[in-house]
């Protein structure tokens, strides 16, 4: 599917390219030991600048979702699932993503999912699929 891609910079590059090594990387504070997202050069929990991207397990839980039926572009293939996934091991961090490789009608809140990267150019998009 055609997608708008993010412009990479020094702050977001680890997130968007971690998939090259198969890693979902979320910004983490080395002082207070908490994760935060989106990535920024300062921790939103303790204001420390001692922060860096850190790999998490890549699993998560569907917090909520919607089936998109509207063709926002003529070439868009619908329906597809947009979901907000709560990232395991990083409390309070959510990712908007797509749930792929399943019947869209079978996605529900609480579903366990794992990351599946889709490469487009220099970007590795963290999509998710259901864990049976």
């Amino acid at each position, binding site marked *: 599917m055609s*997608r708008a*891609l993010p*412009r990479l910079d020094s702050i977001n590059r680890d997130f968007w390219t971690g998939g090259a090594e198969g890693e979902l990387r979320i910004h983490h504070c080395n002082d207070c030991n908490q994760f935060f997202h989106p990535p920024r050069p300062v921790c939103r929990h303790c204001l420390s600048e001692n922060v860096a991207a850190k790999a998490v397990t890549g699993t998560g839980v569907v917090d909520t979702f*919607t089936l998109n039926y509207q063709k926002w572009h003529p070439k*868009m293939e619908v329906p597809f699932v947009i979901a907000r996934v709560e990232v395991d091991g990083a409390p309070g961090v959510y990712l*908007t993503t797509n749930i792929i490789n399943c019947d869209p009608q079978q996605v529900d809140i609480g579903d366990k999912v794992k990351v599946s990267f889709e490469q487009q150019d220099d970007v590795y998009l963290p999509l998710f699929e259901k864990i049976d």
Partner: protein
Amino acid sequence: MSVNEAYITGIGQSQIGVKLDRHPLLLTVDAVKEALAESGLTIGQIDGVSTYPGRVPQMLGFSPVGADDLIDALGIKAKWYAGGGEITSQLGAIVAAATAVKAGLARHVICFRTVYEAGATAKPDEYPMTRRDRVDGGSQWTAPFNAISAANWVAQYAMRHVKKYGLTREQLAQISLTDRAHAALNPRALVREPLTMDEYMSARLVSTPLCLFDCDRYSDASTVIIVSAGDAVDEVKCTPVRIAAMAGSVDRHSWDQAEWMASYQTGPDLWKQTDYTPKDVDTVQLYDGFSFLALTWLEALGFCGIGEGGQFIEGGKRIALDGELPFNTFGGQIGAGRLHGFGFAHEAVTQLRGLGGDRQIKGDPKVAIATSGGGPLATALLLARD
């Protein structure tokens, strides 16, 4: 009149249409002239301007007229002005104006919201959409996943209500059905035909659980609200309406990191600013860019419990024009057009002045609520004729 208060002293509105030929600055002037005529003020008495979100060059249809444009075009000598999108949603511009007049920075402030989203699509040469090769800022966290529209973002909040509280499409439909029934009584409304439950239930889905009729649509219009200082109200000839309380909030201005919607913070905060309670409210004008936002405002403002919004509006009688809590009596954005927040304040004042015509609620309404936003940003105003 209390000198330490802020009042709404004039309201005005242009025609509301789709792909209007009239220039958006002239739509704004239409609304300004109507508001001035109603208030009895002259442009020379205006010394402040406040707007949302200011001129947005990369999305001109979304906001084609900035405060700078209006000040220069009308020869306003302003002592205070403001316009920007980094505020607690559209009615935040009225909060800013009320704060300014209370502080003595200005006496009479024109607040306006002008939209030309439909017209812009008809004139792509004049209103080009700036396209970038890559997305950045907040958009990078949603657009790559084709979560492009606010419909997708609101739909995910709505899905939580469906799954957690059992909200049904038949219940949610009452927002749109009520909007459309009331719009039929509003001569200016964009859509004048009522909507039936059958039409709603058979409409195509946009983003579950939202269908086409849960969404407002691009419109061209301008709405003006004049906010005046308490010690300047005696210069005005129409009935002033006091801004009895105001509240706003933002937790995280992203649609996917905030734990919950901003309306649920702002609703309770509004009541902390006033001795009025929900049972004193005669009518509510609640933001309905998507129907679900209005439903959550009913919960957030305490008219029913959290999760009970669907049952509260079931059947629609309670929120009808002759119900116990008349709702969006002008048709809301779903019926009257996407006025983008300001229409709710305009209608609250209209009702409190008894000038609603065919859609005027019965009795002697004295207290009304107007809200804007409800997702990551929220603003609520309590308006009183007291």
